[in-house]
């Protein structure tokens, strides 16, 4: 395109105001559809839930204001404490996915023939639905035909019916969840390892560093961003744990494997009548826990962003 200075000079006074206006309005127009959808389906419902949590409501009839009644009821609800305790268990044990993912990544970070295929196959568990994972692990633990039972019989050890035993059920479900989550962390670390500066590693090697010391002092610091993302997605995964609980035990036996996400669903849409207000109160508690992590994440992103601009 050829625009001469003469052209600009003659058209400038008319084109400029209009273009300036459009540049002002343009971002609003570009943003409007996404923002509208996001406000309607994500942001507004958060506040609506907070409001609903102050009411008694079956989802169709009249809403009765009960103030903090739902929260007061939560304080005396054993099922709530069981769910909360299990959520803590999930948060703690799910973190194992981070070092496990790192270990697998270190194991696979080689260049031999076919390693790319191996890496992608290791990532498989994350791609398939958690419902499938839940179904398969459910069979693993089957007290009659499960593989755990078969191995136990082979070794002459009595194995518990994991999913029917209040003592083990949550651990059994978390183990199933760790499988895809480790795969996720692995892929994050594999990418991170790709970007570790070879010069620094070589320099440290010349200085005699190797093995675990090299990992701790040279490699891990450079993997900081990968570790951060891995921790964030693992925390969120742990608090979102619904699919596995729902498919593997439905919260049982006797509600001992419930987590907040599942208990909320159960209360709000249970077969014994809908308690939307009470469910919303549970959701608000879960949200408050999650908010701690969301804030940490967002604050870090803001800092990073400021640094870049």
């Amino acid at each position: 395109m050829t625009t001469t200075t003469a052209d600009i000079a003659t058209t400038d006074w008319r084109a400029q105001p209009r273009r300036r206006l459009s540049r002002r309005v343009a971002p609003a127009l570009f943003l409007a559809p996404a923002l509208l959808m996001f406000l309607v389906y994500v942001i507004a419902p958060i506040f609506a839930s907070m409001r609903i949590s102050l009411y008694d409501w079956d989802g169709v009839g009249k809403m009765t204001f009960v103030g903090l009644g739902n929260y007061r009821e939560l304080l005396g609800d054993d099922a709530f404490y069981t769910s909360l305790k299990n959520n803590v268990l999930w948060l703690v044990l799910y973190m194992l996915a981070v070092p496990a993912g790192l270990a697998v990544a270190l194991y696979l970070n080689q260049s031999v023939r076919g390693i790319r295929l191996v890496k992608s196959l290791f990532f498989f568990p994350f791609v398939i639905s958690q419902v499938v994972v839940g179904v398969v692990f459910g069979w693993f633990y089957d007290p009659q035909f499960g593989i755990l039972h078969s191995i136990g019989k082979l070794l002459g050890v009595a194995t518990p019916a994991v999913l029917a035993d209040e003592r083990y059920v949550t651990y059994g479900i978390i183990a199933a969840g760790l499988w895809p989550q480790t795969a996720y962390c692995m892929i994050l670390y594999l990418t991170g390892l790709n970007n570790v500066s070879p010069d620094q590693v070589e320099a440290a090697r010349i200085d005699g560093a190797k093995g675990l010391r090299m990992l701790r002092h040279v490699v891990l610091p450079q993997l900081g961003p990968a570790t951060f993302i891995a921790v964030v997605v693992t925390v969120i995964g742990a608090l979102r744990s619904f699919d596995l609980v729902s498919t593997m035990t439905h919260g049982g036996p006797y509600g001992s494997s419930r987590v907040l996400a599942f208990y909320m669903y159960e209360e709000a849409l249970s077969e014994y009548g809908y308690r939307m207000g009470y469910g919303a109160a549970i959701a608000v508690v879960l949200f408050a826990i999650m908010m701690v992590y969301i804030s940490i994440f967002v604050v870090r992103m803001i800092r990073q962003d400021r640094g870049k601009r």
Partner: protein
Amino acid sequence: MFPRPIAKARPAVRVAYKASLPVALLVWLLPLVAVALTSIRGAGDLARGNYWGWPGEFDLVQNYRAVFVTSPIGLFILNSFRITVPVVAASVALACMAGYALAVYRFRANSWLFFLFVGGNFVPFQILMVPVRDLTLRLGLYDTTLGLILFHSAFQTGFCTLFMRNFISSLPHELIEAARVEGVGEWSIFLRVVMPLMRPAIAALSVLIFTFVWNDYFWALVLIQGNHAMPVTAGLNALNGEWVSAWNLVSAGAIVAAMPPVAMFFLMQKHFIAGLTLGATKG
């Protein structure tokens, strides 16, 4: 490179490493191998208690046919596509525009809006459940695929916008400045200058969102009731409850349900991983 390249190790170590790979892979994928094997196992095997061993009889065709004939899984799969494909298109399109706005223009609310999208993306689903279900009911969209599509599109827009904004920020800004100097309108810059450069990002996002939405189970439970609109995740779970001891059929169903995202992953592997690890490398 860390760990030390295996090529520099002693030959014995090298051989041991290479030999360990397939073993590790087999152990790691044992659950999947089990499902695959069980899906071709004959009913006689299960009757004899052969749940984990090598199948005594192979009923590959029969099992898969039985799943499609005796259950609505064909319909479930179709529903999953009818939900997932529009969601991918809608959320990626919305995010292209929103991400562009956040990356290119400077205005006061810019970072606030960006963090609204980022933060909203991480909230637990449960805090949205009651109002979203209520809204969907009132729109008359409860128990329809459209109701599910609208929600997913809106929710995924958060992650997509984060992704697109970061991607567009990394493009050379001079390109846009040059186009402006040439007198190209804002919309044309977006469409003709920036969009062509966004192709890899669009591909990466599309596979990711496809997988996320395909694998969704919670919202299908909340917003769908009947088979006519049920996606395959919720459908499979229902079948698992119905066919308690017909492991071979449930396995075949599980394989069918897992196939589309797995195929997607294999076809677009590079994009998938690039999308997923976004931000894991930048400090």
